[in-house]
């Protein structure tokens, strides 16, 4: 009986009023009970020291605030934000300031849509380049090398700059061909202004402008509604053989050598861009020239 309250949680259960009535009755009979009861009752006389809740809260707030101030000055996420904004800006800057360039190789053609929706078709061995930032400012300017057929959307002035001169329009369709010492502009729709070092010409639909070497510029007329090269043919009108051969070399990636042939002979006609043998026949037969093909080499001789 004496050992009944000696299991290791007995007193805890007593304090918590968790004892069974039998346990309680027998515990009350024991001599220790009175002492335990006295201790338990005496505990009520104690209290913990007073705690200055408000003052401690105030000092916590002060500490938190002073810490927050330090944080607020340059919070960590700010670095990330600044870095990403800088990155974004530099990407935008790079994109708007970069120069877009499109280049075609031998026998290749390429259709390019410009930022304003205008379209350019590039012939073989040609290139255009423009600055994006110019176009965002409404300044429609590009550089051309080789030959391109332009379909310009209506809008502000559209300029094509070449080494041989500039072509400016306000929305039209035209073809520009620029090679060393060769400059040709054909207007298929609307009105085009051509300007080179010596003169300014205004072309309307069906009119062409051509300047070869140092000769005076020629103006001509044509009937096609779009350049033939777009459909895979190249046409010439009273053009020195030299430029015809050069065009042939560009379309087929060949080297043409000629012996005893006057390259100043004028040629009028059209050759295919798809069949070299056929193209050579259309050029050589009317001019009484013999040709032989050897890989990438084509040699022309007089009959």
């Amino acid at each position: 009986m004496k050992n009944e309250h000696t299991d290791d949680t007995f007193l805890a259960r007593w304090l918590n009023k968790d004892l069974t009535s039998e346990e309680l009755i027998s515990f009350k009979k024991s001599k220790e009970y009175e002492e335990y009861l006295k201790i338990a009752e005496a505990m009520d006389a104690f209290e913990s020291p007073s705690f200055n809740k408000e003052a401690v809260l105030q000092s916590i707030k002060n500490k938190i605030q002073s810490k927050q101030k330090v944080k607020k000055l340059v919070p960590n996420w700010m670095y990330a934000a600044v870095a990403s904004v800088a990155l974004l800006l530099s990407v935008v800057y790079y994109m708007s300031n970069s120069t877009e360039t499109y280049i075609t190789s031998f026998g290749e053609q390429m259709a390019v849509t410009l930022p304003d929706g205008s379209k350019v078709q590039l012939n073989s061995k040609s290139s255009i380049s423009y600055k994006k930032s110019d176009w965002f400012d409404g300044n429609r300017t590009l550089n051309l090398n080789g030959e391109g057929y332009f379909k310009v959307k209506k809008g502000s002035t559209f300029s094509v700059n070449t080494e041989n001169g500039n072509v400016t329009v306000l929305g039209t369709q035209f073809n520009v061909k620029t090679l060393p010492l060769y400059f040709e502009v054909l207007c298929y729709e609307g009105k085009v202004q051509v300007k080179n070092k010596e003169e300014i010409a205004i072309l309307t639909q069906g009119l062409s402008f051509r300047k070869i070497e140092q000769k005076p510029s020629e103006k001509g007329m044509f009937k096609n509604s779009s350049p033939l090269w777009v459909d895979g043919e190249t046409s010439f009108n009273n053009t020195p053989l030299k430029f015809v051969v050069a065009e042939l070399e560009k379309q087929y990636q060949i080297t043409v050598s000629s012996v005893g042939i006057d390259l100043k002979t004028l040629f009028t006609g059209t050759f295919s861009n798809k069949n070299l043998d056929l193209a050579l026949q259309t050029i050589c037969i009317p001019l009484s020239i013999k040709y032989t093909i050897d890989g990438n080499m084509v040699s022309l001789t007089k009959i």
Partner: protein
Amino acid sequence: MLEKKSVCESEVFEELYSDHSKSLYNFAFYKTGNSAQSEDLVQEAFIKMWNNCVKIIFEKAKSFLFTVVNNQFLNDVAHKKVVLNYRKQGVKESTNENPEFLLEEKEFLNKLQTTISNLKEGQREVFLLNRIDKKTYKEIAEILSISVKAVEKRMHLALKQVREQIGNI
């Protein structure tokens, strides 16, 4: 449960403070026996909670606070001999006891006080949290991260110890 309370909001923070600061202080005091040190521990716990408020869910805030006080105490408080200074309360308003009885009772309380001071820290904090703060065994178990059974054992031992030692003084 639809809306979760964020510890980062100052109203929630103040609610937690008004609910737990006093018992947190007592808990610290039962460990250290030093009121200034206890206030520091309470402060540190709340500041730590605020700085980590994003990571702490409301339901876990209370146990976080007690854990911080406990760890902080173990970390940087030298184990001194704790002398608890309890203020006596005028429990009994009736004064029909004779002076001899009153004197005896005062003596008994002093003895009790000394005995409690001499208890092991683990037993003392459990005993006082239950007797003075009226915390249930379950609550104490949560605060100390121990089982209810362990709390009951400590209670039992504490009371047994007090009874055995009080006669020797």
